[in-house]
């Protein structure tokens, strides 16, 4: 969902954020590299909405799930998670947080592995992050990464329509039918 971009010299997150605020497009900043966020398909947007609305129905009042345009700062990187859960909601005028409880990316089947690895490394380095989800958008599949305090992570894969994405860190389980509702990917639903 991004392309590399040539921009004026930007050395750190502060310079990036000041620059990005003046741009019409959204950009990510990963270890010094700037990339423009490109538009997504309706299905991509829909899956983000289904996931975030399921989360918002469950989350306590001070925590919220956002889709696609709230920035997460992890060390010297700025990311736009497709879905971001944070309890750092005291100032709703803010556009960036450093405190993610959960992040999710909705990925295409042809996303290069290097790109998946880059995002996985960035998210799993976020302090306090309890789960990182990778949601497939060509089939029923949600991967759940749960980082351990001492390094490493647990990896679960849910592929069954009657399964659930279990998130112990959020004390919540989301049925696959809620995430893929009206996506055309559930067996009993026709194509969109």
């Amino acid at each position, binding site marked *: 969902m991004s*392309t*590399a971009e040539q921009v004026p010299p930007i050395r750190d997150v502060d310079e990036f954020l000041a620059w990005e605020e003046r741009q019409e497009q959204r950009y990510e900043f*990963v*270890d*010094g*590299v700037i990339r423009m966020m490109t538009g997504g398909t309706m299905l991509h947007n829909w899956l983000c909405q289904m996931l975030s609305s399921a989360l918002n129905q469950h989350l306590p009042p001070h925590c919220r799930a956002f889709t696609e345009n709230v920035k997460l700062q992890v060390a010297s990187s700025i990311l736009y998670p497709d879905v971001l859960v944070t309890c750092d909601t005291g100032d709703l005028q803010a556009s960036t947080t450093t405190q993610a409880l959960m992040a999710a990316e909705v990925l295409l*089947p*042809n*996303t290069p*592995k*290097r*790109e*998946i*690895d*880059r995002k*996985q*490394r960035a998210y*799993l380095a976020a302090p306090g992050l309890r789960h990182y989800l990778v949601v497939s958008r060509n089939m029923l*599949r949600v991967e759940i*990464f749960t980082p*351990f305090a001492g*390094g*490493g*992570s*647990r*990896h*679960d*894969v849910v592929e069954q329509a009657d399964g659930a994405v279990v998130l112990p860190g959020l004390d919540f389980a989301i049925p696959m039918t809620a995430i893929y509702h009206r996506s055309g990917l559930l067996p009993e639903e026709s194509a969109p």
Partner: protein
Amino acid sequence: MNTAENDPSLRTVAEFLAWEEAQPERYEFYDGAIRMMVGARGAHNTIAINLRNALQARRPKGCQAYAESYKLHISNTILYPDVLLTCDPDSQRNTVTDHALLTAEVLSPSSVRDDNFRKKALYLAVPTLRHYLILSQEYVQVEVCSRTGDGPVTIQLYDRLDQTIDLPGLGITVPMSALYDDTDVTEDLTDFIDKREAEE
């Protein structure tokens, strides 16, 4: 790393094994579907051999590590893992085993995500399997999937040459630098992505 073929006369693992023995090429068998194994570029082979040698030098007593030439039997499927470690006492007399403690795949740059997923699920279905390693040949990265007892699968990601891989299921450790010895694989994923995007 392989091309699909089909021979409807081969339905069972026994039929496939008898047929494959007479072939000049190596083939995998996915529940009735046959795939020929094709050649790989240098780094793939170097990394697979490096891992095999590192495991062989540290292997538990009675075990053997093989690279690219030993078959693994999983229900109605036969795979050629890039690296396989088995403690099957008959492994040296046979060409196929259903007892693997560790398997590893060196990903090719063109490998398809769904294929990788399918392989991982197959390997993790081997009851004796404790570790499955996924090695990148594009940048320094080893994903170690580990299983202890009936517990969940855990993943440890290694991405630096000064790290040491812990394989508790085998009671050994392997230095990352040994796996990427004699290759020019970069440690810098961001730099690698920049260069690839500049080429594309």
